[in-house]
């Protein structure tokens, strides 16, 4: 194997465009590459990668590698790991960044074990140690109660990065870069899974991840009817409704509304947390919000430790008056 060099980003494509996690990784990756005076590479895999390579260059990549094949239409562990294994062996990056997404969570561990490399998942911060030149990998552990910094001497140093933990660069369309297709040789017999169907469970209105105002309900909401009231408030704020885990587990709202360590990561301007306690695993998904507002009947609830403003009381008594006043203020 050639000497390891460069920072590589595994790119994801969503609806024909570079996914937001990928522009974030290219932003973070650019900084790491500049610090260690190395190149930033991006690999894109799919049946068709479309305009994504140009976008990757504009977002910071020096070199883009594309792997296109009809067998790569959908993410499947066996096919994607095989392509990545070959690419990493051929290109030998020192650092490989993936997103902590549905794909990254599945692909990264399997790839790391195949390569005999180390992996830290769900990283929040990355830096280069000036002495050892190794990647310092800061990740959330113990459900968000703690942070751990890891380092590894085995190469490549593979990490997955939490969504919204890094900032994308302003796209520069004039930036030049190389695009190189890589040869894909897949044996269909070695793909041991088959995707029968993909079911979308999207809710109407603004997507949770994109909303600037989020109204989140917890176990204390007590049932699906309560969430109708939260929806009314969210609508008035032109925002979205979210939930802690119990309302999803209880079937009051779709699973896709879950905010937290194992749900969505959100960073809105305004996050109104109603009748949820603020468990560390929930905060992992919303602590990036600029302003958290708490409504809870328990003055000791942990959410008040994270909140900027709060009211102690029964949400059933508070919310109607709050929504009404909000509407009045917005109309005036």
């Amino acid at each position: 194997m050639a000497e390891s060099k460069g920072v590589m980003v595994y790119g994801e494509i969503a609806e024909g465009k570079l996914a937001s996690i990928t522009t974030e990784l290219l932003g973070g990756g650019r900084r790491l590459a500049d610090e260690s005076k190395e190149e930033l590479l991006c690999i894109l895999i799919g049946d068709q990668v479309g305009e994504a390579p140009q976008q990757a260059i504009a977002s910071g990549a020096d070199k883009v590698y594309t792997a296109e094949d009809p067998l790569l239409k959908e993410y499947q562990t066996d096919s994607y790991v095989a392509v990545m294994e070959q690419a990493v062996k051929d290109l030998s990056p020192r650092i490989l960044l993936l997103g902590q997404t549905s794909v990254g969570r599945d692909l990264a561990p399997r790839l790391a074990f195949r390569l005999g490399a180390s992996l830290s998942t769900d990283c929040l911060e990355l830096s280069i140690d000036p002495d050892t030149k190794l990647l310092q990998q800061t990740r959330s552990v113990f459900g968000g109660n703690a942070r751990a910094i890891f380092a590894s001497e085995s190469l490549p140093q593979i990490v997955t990065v939490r969504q919204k933990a890094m900032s994308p660069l302003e796209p520069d369309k004039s930036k030049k870069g190389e695009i190189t297709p890589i040869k894909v040789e897949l044996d269909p017999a070695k793909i041991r899974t088959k995707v029968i169907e993909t079911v979308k469970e999207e809710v109407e209105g603004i997507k949770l991840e994109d909303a600037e105002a989020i109204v989140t309900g917890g176990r204390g909401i007590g049932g699906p009817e309560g969430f109708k009231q939260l929806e009314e408030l969210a609508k008035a704020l032109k925002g979205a409704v979210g939930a802690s885990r119990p309302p999803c587990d209880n079937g009051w709202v779709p699973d896709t509304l879950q905010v937290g360590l194992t749900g969505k990561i959100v960073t809105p301007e305004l996050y109104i947390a109603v009748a949820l306690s603020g468990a560390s695993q929930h905060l992992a998904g919303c602590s990036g919000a600029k302003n958290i507002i708490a409504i809870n009947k328990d003055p000791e609830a942990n959410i008040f430790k994270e909140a900027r403003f709060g009211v102690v009381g029964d949400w059933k008594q508070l919310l109607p008056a709050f929504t009404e006043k909000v509407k009045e203020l917005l109309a005036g």
Partner: protein
Amino acid sequence: MNMIVCCKQVLDPEAPPASFKIDPGSNQVVPPPGVPPVISPFDEQAVEAALRIKDSQGGKITVLSLGNKLLRDVVKKPLSMGADELVLLEDEAFEGGDSWSIAYALAMAIKKIGEFDLIFCGRQAADWDAGQVGSGIAEILGIPSVTVAKKVEAVDGKARVERVIADGYQVVEVTLPALITVSNELGEARYATLKGIMAAAKKQPTIWKPADIGVDPSQTGAAGRRTKLVKLFQPVREGKCEIIEADSPAEAAAGLAVKLREAKLI
């Protein structure tokens, strides 16, 4: 159907956040007093996934737990839920491992167990939250894996899995033997029955040491790590919440709205 479920004993992840403490000297978590450890919740749901298959078509469930000084009351819980056998990889040498060394030891134990159609793990352990061991075991054993499942059925020599993705789920078919990691969307794990608890009390776990599974102590636990823990710390929280008080809930609620307006948040 021969099934194996990997279950980890962890500090209770639902203990109040205020009780969470770290000893900076040793880079270790100080267990909160009076809060007993539990089986990692996703692993309990992995047991549930296996039990549902056993309920519908029969089969045998072997539970595998790795650690040192494991509490019998805790690690026997899957037996009291309905699992058939418990194997403990229990030794000092297993302590302090990372995803790499733990997956390796579990995979070697699974090889020793020998016969299996399905292996289940939780999607991630509720302490280190890494989410690597399941995929790692599958890779070492050379079998396919499907992660973050909310439903698992076994039909015609295959497993049909609903895999949770960000905006919904995917139905995936996988050839057996396979490894599946399970998420909370599967639904709550069943409670242990009194009968189950009594039966579990009588069962003795099988205990294996590194040598029993052909693992050199240098490849397991702390010695087998590929990542080094540089530092473990608690993030600082500022915690300056302004509580809006008033004579009535309606006034407090309206007061909050006014505050948000003043702060230009609405």
